């Protein structure tokens, strides 16, 4: 049973879908950020797999940059959460709907 590129792609998609579930159902912002990490990670697997099967390094480079981006996002995201938490004492997004319409 040969593991082909498609296997990895399907896996990546499934993980991406799990990430989407998290994005949609998490109300706690911190946990919601977890889900976005899952999204990026799932893509990373696919990139690495493609890179592997095509014998091309670009995919791995992409992963490299994605990881960097994910790290930066964490920094900014946590920064935002901290300010919000300082003011409101929670990080629940249901409390965050003063603007609408």
């Amino acid at each position, binding site marked *: 049973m040969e593991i082909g590129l498609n296997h990895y792609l399907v896996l990546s998609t499934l993980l991406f879908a799990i990430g*989407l579930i998290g*994005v*949609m*159902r*998490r*109300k706690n912002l911190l946990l919601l950020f977890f889900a976005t990490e899952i999204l990026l990670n799932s893509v990373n697997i696919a990139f690495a797999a493609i890179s592997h099967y095509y014998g091309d390094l670009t995919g791995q480079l992409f992963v490299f940059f994605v990881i960097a981006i994910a790290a930066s996002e964490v920094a900014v995201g946590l920064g935002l959460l901290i300010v919000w938490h300082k003011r409101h004492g929670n990080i629940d*997004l*249901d409390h*965050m*709907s*003063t*603007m*609408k*319409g």
Partner: protein
Amino acid sequence: MELYLYLALFSPLVGSLFAGLFGASPRTKIAGVVPSLLLLLSFVSSTVLLIYILSGGEKVHVEMMTWMATGDLYIPFGFVVDQVSVTMMMVVTLVSTVVHFYSIGYMDHDKGFNRFFSYLSAFVFSMMILIMSDNFAGLFIGWEGVGLCSWLLIGFWYHKESATWAANEAFIMNRIADLGMLIGIFLVYWNTGSLQYDHVFATVGALDKEVLTWMGIFLFIGAMGKSAQFPLHTWLADAMEGPTPVSALIHAATMVTAGVYLVVRANPLYDLIPNVGLFIASLGAFVALFAASMALVNRDMKRIIAYSTLSQLGYMFVAAGLGAYWVALFHLMAHAFFKALLFLGAGNVMHAMHNELDPFKMGGLRKVMKGTFIMMTLASVALAGIYPFAGFFSKDLILEVGFVEHHYIIYTVLLFTAGLTAFYSFRLVALIFHGEERYKLFGIHPHEAYKFMLVAMSPLLLLAIIAGSFKMTYFEMVTAVLPATEYHVHSTIAYWIMTIGTQLFVILAIAFAYKKYANNKVKVPDGTSKMENRLCYKILSNQYYIPYIYEEYLVKPYRELSTVFWKQVDMKVVDATVDGIAGIIYAGGEKTRVMQSGNLSTMLKWMVAGTIGLLSFAVVFGLAVRYSGEIKTILSGLGV
């Protein structure tokens, strides 16, 4: 001669403007005298022109300036004085001069004295344009102009609801006819390429019969309105709300005859379409009888005379329709004299009776108003057509025309109408001047009119008596332009039988009228007498219920439909659609703005949902492309 033409034409205008200057100022005699004198000038000029024409002069034709010119259309202000128009000019200027002078007295106490003369002279001016114009467009100017003046004058006492109502009715009814006229003019233009009479009548011969028929019909529709022919006749009786001199001038002598003038003027056209002519004649005969019948029972002095006018107009149309244009014109002239006289007399009576119009409330006035009595009686005699008064010559001639042209039904109708005419005319005279002095019951103290008013009326009296003697002179003159058919009953015996028979019939009718109404037993009817409750009386006194029908089935529905159009259609359909579209868009915004709930989770869901939506579409599309071959096979297998 051009100078006289311009004098005749424009002096009424000057008079009108002069009086108009005083329009807002209080009553001044001068505002009445100057226009009257100017009209006299116009009359004199017309006379000069008449003499010139009579002495065999060429017709006077001037083109003052261009009015409208565009494309191939060229309409000048052109005026022509020929045998026909000069006759009309004479009639118009004479009657209006008389009426003007008369009005100085009649309107003496009226607040709108100045205004009145302004309108009246303006009317004369319009009438002059109507008859002197050398083209249809000019005719139409006059046509509408007299309509306007008629509106102003009928509604002269604008504080009276009935007067303004009648004015509007007259104007609108005339407008209906004017539309026909306008269409007629369009037809003329597009078929002959011009509106000038000489050019048009020179070319009509070459046109299709059908086109000519339509032309004739539409022009005649115009004539029907102005001359108040059935079914556009109701306005004339209502127009009696205006001051009596107005009725005399406009609604008896001049304006209402414009229709006849039009048909006479367009004789080359109508000669080519005898069918239409016959229709005109038949309608004329019908109106003659129809109007006379309504006059029989009416209880309004002026209305009776108005119906009489209507009836006589019917006579004229019979003549014109049967091609006896000169006869029609002759009767027009004669009628103008005695009918104006009659009206002015009625005006005197009204003045005396403090605007009381019901002849049943008068009686025995001959004692206090001798002059008026004589004049009105003579005018009635002329109207009835007793020899040797004017009416005899003109009216009997029309009967003869009917007989000679073998339209016996028309002849019979007209003959019968002649009897009716005599009856109602003398019913009126008898009720007013004879019998018991019923007016005393109402506490009125009648008095004779000013002397000079009677003097002013006298030319008309004279002409009502002697006009008949001009018949041959007139005939020779007009036939230069009109078909010179002489109408003679071939058998002399038949002629005498007819003439004498008619005279006897008329005299009998007069006698009957006197017998019935000139005695002391006449009472003011109170709606209880047996006769008043008869069906035919009711029909007649309600004018065959025509005004009622118009009101119920035309005016009211129009008003209601208008309201429906406004409130239901315009507001609730057209406008509501526009607002509805806006409303739907706006409501769409209100309804869907909940999508923006402000909750981040919802927002994320929307994003994901959008992506998924796109994905599903992509998958469907991708699969379709990938399996396009298979899909095609399946579809073809299914027979698509």
